[in-house]
């Protein structure tokens, strides 16, 4: 167990991204609060405890809220909040379906978006019942 006197050697963000580079959606789990939390932090937001374990999600979740944007240039895209089964929520994009037709309550599965160039990978989701 580390204390606050000890320097952080890797940021929560970098840990999250290292998992993504391995194809995993990972999340911090508070051993003290016995629950997941998101966004990743140095300490559990429910207890202040630093006893955190990184766990890998099964990658399944449910759309909690959804919107879409049609920019002046380029294609329309979706922005959604997904409740992941392990008990945390994140912002994401639902792909594999028209952005306008994403429905709240839809079951979804994670897909790691490999961004071009220097950009870090990030998780997107596709409907569970859609063709892979």
């Amino acid at each position, binding site marked *: 167990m580390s204390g606050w006197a000890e320097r952080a050697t890797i940021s929560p963000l970098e840990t999250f991204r290292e998992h993504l580079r391995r194809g995993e959606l990972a999340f911090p789990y508070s051993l003290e609060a016995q629950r997941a939390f998101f966004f990743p932090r140095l300490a559990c937001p429910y207890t202040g405890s630093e006893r955190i374990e990184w766990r890998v999600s099964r990658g399944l979740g449910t759309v909690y809220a*959804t*919107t*879409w*944007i049609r920019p002046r240039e380029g294609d329309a895209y979706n922005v959604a909040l997904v409740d992941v089964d392990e008990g945390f*929520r994140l912002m994401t994009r639902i792909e594999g379906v028209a952005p306008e037709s994403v429905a709240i309550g839809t079951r979804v599965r994670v897909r790691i978006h490999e961004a071009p160039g220097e950009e870090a990978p990030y998780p997107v989701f596709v409907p569970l019942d859609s063709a892979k």
Partner: protein
Amino acid sequence: MTTNRRGSVAIVGAAESDLGAVAAGLSPTDLMAQAVLRALRDAGLSPHDVDGLFACASQPRMTTMAICEYLRIDPRHHDVTYMGGSSFMTQLAHAQAAIEAGLCEVAVIAYASTQRSSGRNLVSPREPNPYETPYRPVLPASAYALAASRHMHQYGTTREQLAAVAVAAREWALLNPAAWEKQPLTIEEVLAARMVSYPLTVRDACLVTDGGGAIVVTSASRARSLRREPVYLLGSGEHLSHVSISSMPDLTVTGAARSGGIAYRKAGLSPSEIDVVEVYDAFTICTILFLEDLGFCPKGEGGRFVVERGIGPKGGLPVNTNGGGLSYCHPGQYGLLLLIEATRQLRGECGERQVAGAETAIAHGNGGVLSSQSTVILGTAATL
């Protein structure tokens, strides 16, 4: 020592700066100084009477310093509390506490921006969030759109009900000579307008204008010696819940439920005893959420309430009587203009849009993306 005592301070001066699209080259500090001087004149006071200064803005960030430099004043007490558009309700509560504690006696609260003239991205650049930015949400609109989507899903709220909020705001604006919008608006026009972030169109969204304002606050005893009818602070409450929309616990329940509850308790009033309602309508969904969370209708009924009870000039509950951020003026952190309108309604000086016999008003500020909520309840001398 008991602080934030019911009616211990009053608003004794209120004024807008120039609004809308201001003269080229005017700075936000020009506008703040203009509003401060107008509010002091309204109160019958001069800049040298000011010993407490409260302000915050995204330009200039060292806001009280900019005002002091401009007006060459040297207040004993400063406060730059920054929580977005709700800052000024909280600053009013802080001014009350400071006056009660003897830190100052005549406080001014000020805000202005030139976000229309200077460009909004320059005025309030977004802070990147590595867990949201890659998805390119159009902030703040997409955050409110996500809340609207959840409300529609959970309670059957419709786009037409959202549009009814914009139409009511426009009807009020047409009664306010200072309002930016001058033409009537229909439900169909709201629905057919350019989509910003579904389900919110550009007509579901607040204006982007220049503007600002100021209010003067002093102790109840000093207030009674001044020229204007004092508008007393009866109660206040605040609640902060998140910064990013992905961290908001429940997108259908805002911190207004908490901030409003505290304010009502301090004021000793219930929603049915409020005559005038001024809530921060950054987007049409905000009015619906705040009417619910401030207790004017049950949770989930806001959409039906705005249509069936009505919130326009002919409706059952007067809401956003200046025309709101949707149709009157929205210079960024709009909360201060809600306090000005509530003050004017309680003084009975609102002309065609005056709510007859108004004795109590609620002014509710929102900051960030439903992030900070701050409520104040104001009343005339009759409510003390």
